[in-house]
């Protein structure tokens, strides 16, 4: 084959990313997956935080077969796709694989093939990327039709989310980026964060581009003691406390993701 066809994924594959680590990216990915699965969708969470994966910790799963075994040819892809507690499937990276800390042509091909192979099997694929904007993170995001940036209302998270949005707009031609504002302290704070980011994007990012970048607020997750509790017990909030404010918000976000 001489030409690479455009990615057929459309909006089926969603990258969940964040500029800064520790803002709840994996928590959002896992619970969104549970919410989507509750709605009868077949959902896969692909743990693409290749260097510092902790989806296994969030879900309390410690499988022998991970992405690493698939990439090294020790296991078949289908054997590495495991059922997770929330009624969705996961493909775990396994922690601490330093060989994936830098992008290589080989890793590029493997990741792309991987998405191509799993896409026909699921309604939605959530890609839990690493934090930051290393070339590995940027590439995994580029494989997804939709991007969702998780941000918390604090200066470092805002700055890093903004830097991420800037790169995604310039390097990947993204013009529509979803925002999930985590750990809001009062209602409406998510809207303010979006507005603030949008304002700076309008002023400093969009003018250099062919068309403006639009940030879409998918929802805000209130700072919620139930979240902390669920995380510490290594349970899915959406499963164990579906009535908690953050869980209700996650269900609403899932609804917004499905056209």
């Amino acid at each position, binding site marked *: 084959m001489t030409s690479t066809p455009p990615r057929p994924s459309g909006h089926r594959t969603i990258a969940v990313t964040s500029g*800064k680590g520790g803002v709840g990216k994996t928590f959002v990915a896992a619970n969104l997956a549970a919410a989507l699965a509750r709605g009868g969708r077949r959902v896969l969470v692909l743990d693409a935080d290749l260097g510092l994966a902790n989806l296994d910790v969030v879900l309390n799963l410690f499988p022998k077969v991970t992405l690493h075994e698939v990439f090294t040819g020790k296991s078949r892809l289908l054997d590495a796709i495991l059922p997770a507690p929330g009624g969705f499937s996961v493909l775990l990276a396994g922690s601490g694989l330093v060989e994936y800390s830098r992008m290589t042509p080989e890793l590029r091909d493997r990741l792309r093939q991987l998405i191509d192979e799993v896409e026909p099997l699921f309604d939605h694929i959530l890609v839990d990327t690493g*934090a930051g904007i290393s070339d590995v993170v940027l590439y995994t995001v580029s494989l997804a039709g939709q991007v969702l940036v998780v941000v918390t209302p604090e200066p470092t998270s805002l700055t890093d989310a903004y830097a991420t949005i800037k790169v995604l707009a310039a390097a990947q031609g993204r013009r529509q980026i979803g925002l999930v504002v985590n750990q809001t302290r009062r209602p409406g704070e998510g809207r303010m964060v979006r507005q603030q980011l949008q304002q700076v994007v309008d002023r400093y990012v969009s003018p250099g581009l062919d068309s403006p970048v639009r940030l879409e607020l998918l929802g805000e997750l209130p700072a919620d003691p139930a979240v902390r509790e669920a995380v510490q017990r290594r349970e899915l909030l959406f499963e164990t406390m579906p009535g908690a404010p953050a869980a209700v918000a996650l269900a609403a976000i899932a609804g917004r993701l499905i056209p």
Partner: protein
Amino acid sequence: MDSSTFPPLSVPPALRFEQALQLLAQAGREVPKGQAGSPAWLQELIDALVDLSSRDALTGLANRRAFELALGREIDRVARSGEPALLLTLDIDHFKSVNDQWGHAAGDHVLKAVAATLLECVRPMDLVARIGGEEFAIILPSCASAFGEAVAERVRRRLEHLPVTISHDQRITVTVSIGGAYAPQWVRSKPPLWQERADQQLYLAKAHGRNLVRIEPSAMPLVSNEEKRLLFDTYFGHDHE
């Protein structure tokens, strides 16, 4: 205490305490005080030996072993904290010709002078190491990417103007080339990869004519102060009383 006479030892000779004490004395270190063989004495001895084996004998800087340990610790810290950490590797330009022209004793003077100056140029939290013949490295934790260039440039300039007295009537000056790279944030990596990236920049600095600084460009786009102001001011200014 006179370092050539050690207290009589009541410990088995197979443990080679004599040799350990001789090594400390040779390095000009204090030998442990107190009752030979007592726990406190042993602790002091071990501490002194650990320190001795972490330092470069000529310059007193951290040696390659200590440097590699520190680099490993720092890369793990950055992986999770996301804090920016800079590694600089430095090489004295044309050091071989210093040795050839003025002799190895002169070369040693140069190495010591460079080491002392490097220590003066950095913060106490930074680690300065001699990692090879005329090769040095500095680990700078929590060094924002906006400052990396300035720090390295300050080091380069300080050394450029440093006269080294190599004999009573002879002073020479040397220059250094400096390469730098930031630790990968939010991702598990390993020390050799980080050092390789800094060394690559050092190589470029050499190739572009020496007495130069080259820092690997950061992947994170710089968010200017104006952008930050617009990002925070209204937000954290008005609404977070």
